[in-house]
């Protein structure tokens, strides 16, 4: 970590970055990722200038959101956390009753001048709420507190699952889970939860999962069974990555992507385009950038001053990692197909603003530090 954090009260040595509350190593990693991402997107979109422009505008808005959030001291939204969470729950309920339908799911809320997904708010509100809850108590958490934490996670998760939006509900549940883990849950408690989950899994399969979700899992287990149907995505994506080899076929030269064999190549499966055109080297480069960002996130968490920010920073970082891992795991065929974009590389996605806002929180945690006594 090249940059040493200065005492924020030292006004004489204050750089522009710290005056804007920016964390340079994080910014550097994000910019590197965005540039690489746009490069891949240009190829994956069939050299579409229009898509590139729209993605650029979206990124600009997301970065602005990040700057704005970073400028807010964490203690401000720490104070407001319970209200943000409660408002999020109400909005989710509103979606259930008045929501807009789109692509077979009810996720949108139309406010006349503005359409948005309340589940995006919950991506931040849930970890914030849990961090706030645990920061008020002594850690490691007791069983009763764990139960309350589980309820705090379960309510929004279930509300989003019935939309249905499996990807987001998994993300939200895991972000809450990460807080519990980071809050120091005892290993034996964690283990017994894992055992319960193992027992519950078959029940979930038979009584809860939707047909299309089961299909995704079955396809994941044996994609070759239905090579032109539901297995097509995974097979073509593995062919794209595998045929890329070590050095790749070269930028704009990927036959799987340029000849349109690869479906959803500019959105969820964009990693396959990268793997095909930039090869193993490209993949290692991308994962290195992600590791840099994640590592910086954990560093910020470790350096945080209080429990709330520490838990929140750790959970945000881990959630970001889940995006990366689930998407790449899906595209390379080690995880079932779950509709999650590759963060900051995939085209579009309302989640981009939320994600950058969460990086804004990380930066805020790093740059708004109180002078500690002694």
């Amino acid at each position, binding site marked *: 970590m090249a940059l040493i954090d200065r005492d924020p009260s030292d006004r004489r040595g204050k750089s522009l970055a710290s005056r804007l509350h920016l964390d340079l190593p994080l910014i550097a990693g994000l910019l590197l990722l965005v540039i690489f991402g746009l490069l891949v997107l240009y190829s994956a979109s069939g050299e579409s200038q229009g898509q590139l422009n729209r993605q650029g505008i979206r990124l600009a808005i997301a970065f602005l959101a990040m700057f704005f959030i970073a400028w807010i001291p964490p203690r401000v939204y720490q104070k407001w956390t*319970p209200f943000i969470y409660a408002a999020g729950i109400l909005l989710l309920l509103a979606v259930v009753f008045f929501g807009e339908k789109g692509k077979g799911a009810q996720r949108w809320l139309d406010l006349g001048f503005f359409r948005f997904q309340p589940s995006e708010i919950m991506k931040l509100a849930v970890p914030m709420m849990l961090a706030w*809850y645990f920061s*008020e*108590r*002594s*850690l*490691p958490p007791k069983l009763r507190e764990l139960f*309350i934490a589980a309820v*705090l996670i379960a309510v929004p998760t279930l509300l989003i699952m019935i939309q249905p939006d499996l990807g987001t509900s998994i993300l939200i549940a895991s972000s809450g889970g*990460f807080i519990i*883990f*980071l*809050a*120091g849950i005892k290993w034996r408690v964690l283990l017994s939860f894992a055992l319960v989950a193992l027992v519950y899994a078959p029940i979930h399969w038979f009584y809860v999962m939707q047909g299309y979700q089961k299909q995704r899992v079955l396809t994941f287990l044996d994609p070759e069974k239905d090579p032109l149907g539901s297995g097509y995505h995974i097979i*073509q994506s*593995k*062919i*794209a*990555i*595998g*045929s*890329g*080899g*070590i050095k790749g076929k070269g930028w704009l030269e990927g*036959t*799987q992507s340029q*000849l*349109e*064999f690869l479906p959803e190549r500019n959105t969820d499966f964009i990693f396959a385009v990268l*793997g095909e055109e930039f*090869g*193993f080297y490209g*993949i*290692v480069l991308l*994962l290195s950038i*992600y*590791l840099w960002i*994640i*590592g910086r996130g*954990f560093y910020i*968490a*470790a350096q945080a001053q209080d*429990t709330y920010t*520490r*838990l929140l920073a*750790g959970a945000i*970082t*881990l959630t970001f*990692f889940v995006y990366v*891992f689930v998407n*790449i*795991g899906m595209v*390379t*065929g*080690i995880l079932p197909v779950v509709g999650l974009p590759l963060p900051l590389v995939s085209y579009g996605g309302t989640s981009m603003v939320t994600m950058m806002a969460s990086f804004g929180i990380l930066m805020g945690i790093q740059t708004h530090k109180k002078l500690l006594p002694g």
Partner: protein
Amino acid sequence: MSLLNASSRQKGSRSFKDHYLERKLLVSRVVIAFVFVVLMLIALVMRSWYLQVVKHEDYQTRSNDNRISVQPIAPKRGLIFDRNGVLLAENRSVYSLEIIPEQVADIDNTLVKLKQLALIEEKHQTAFKSKLRGIRRFKSVVVKSRLNEEEVAVFSVNRHQFPGVRIEARLVRHYPFGEELVHALGYVGRINDRELARIDQANYQATRHIGKVGLEKFYEDHLHGTIGFRRVETDVQGRVIGEPLFEKPPVPGNNLRLSIDIRLQQVAAEAMGDYRGSVVAIDPRNGEILALVSNPGYDPNGFVTGISVSDYQKLTTSSDRPLFNRALRGLYSPGSVIKPHLGWVGLESKLITTKSTVPDPGFWIIPNEEQRLYRDWKKDGHGEAVDLRLAIVQSCDPYFYDLAYRMGIDTLSKYMRSFGFGQYTGIDMGEEVPGIMPSREWKRAERKMPWFPGETVITGIGQGYWISTPLQMANSIAQLGIGGTRYNLHLVTHIQDGDSWKTTPIVPAENQADFSNKDNLKAVQNAMRRVNLYPLGTAKTAFSGAKYTSAGKTGTVQLTSQTEDYDETKVEEQYRDNAMYLGYAPFETPEIALAVVVENAGHGGDKAAPVARKVLDEYFRARDNKTASLNRSEKVGQYGVN
């Protein structure tokens, strides 16, 4: 809100928090999380390594299978030339107007504009619309096939107005001599399911036509050629992207050179006029076919591009049977034309001499059997003492009744087989029939009946069970004229193999007659010479004034039992006599032999011999006038043949 209250109630406990321990716990959890993340990222790297390095070749192959498709290229069909290099079967560019739907912004407007240019009609527009459904939009769809030159020109001028519309050229077989030559060439047509099962499908992937009949069918393997292919890159919908990655050009089919002289063929066809029948002219020295006419013919070009049902029905139901190849499959009673052959057999088997005579009162009866009269064609007969020469020149029937009766069917049949009767001529068309040279064994096997002596008598004048094709008859007279080897008949003399032409082998026929006794041969040949020359000769009128020497024999074959007062004009056309003529020339060293059959025309001397005369005249005119021959070839188009 109860949660908020709960937490505020516990505010007091906060002071008991051990900040140092808590911080230690949380930081250790962050470290554990980081280690976990690193391990998982390593797992992703390993997964990529597995796909991109371990399994690379596997996926490389599958990626190529995805994108590379092989497109077959049809070979050019071999050309067919006549003996002087005149093109008889060629490949012509046929133009069709095609539209690639996805490249056309407004299809309706485009069709209207094409209609305004008179390139298409209403029916093309509606047909195109129905074709458009359920088709891949980047594939070319035919709007109108068979554009003429003018339409191609009109479109070319206006091309800029029609993006996505193009003219596609395809090579299609064309026969410039049409119906005059169809029975010698055959034709090609669309490959049907039965043929598809028989052919090497890999080699025919890009081929639309196959030889259906005649030479085109018999030499299919030579004419077709070898398929080529190009590897092209295609996208997920099968569109071709860019230039071919690899191309193996097709190998054109072998060209054929025939023994046919197209000019002679045309003269023979013209000479037949509207009569049904056949002319076969051959070279007795090698069995080459110089002309092969079966009248009437039909236009083979209709069969190439698709003939309409009504046109096809006209051909199949016509009483003239134009589709029937009379030269190969027409079975005719040879009649008197085989009298020279029989006379020679009589001499060879010592049943007669040139001096021996038979009385001809106008009829003949089997000795000691007076129930039935075998009539001469001439009511009053040919006198008290008819010898062999007179019997041939005047075509005297009783002489041969007597000879055949004394010879017996066994000897007659055996010798006639040595002239090729009842056997295949071996022509390279594969469709001929062998006819029937009757014998005792044949009748027992086919008719389950014994042979009667009276049947031998009429066999002596080429009637009864004896039936023969024009090909056989031509080859038999060729053998008698040259007094030597008879050859299998053939049309193809050279096959092009790469840049060189290879000659096809000349194969002697089976069952050769033995002409070691030159006197017997000469006696018969001289008599045939007199048929064309002697004042009493049956073909004398037809051959008067010929500038070359020739020999021959006429025949007039009754198709119905005739009474004494047979009057040609009063008999229905299909029951009138067949006029026949066999002959060869020059008399001394024969170069051409021919058989002419004119169905239901009347006397051989009047109707068949003049056809032979015209063919022979043309043959010698061309032979003796090389410069004229060259000029003529230029008129019909000279093509370079080595």
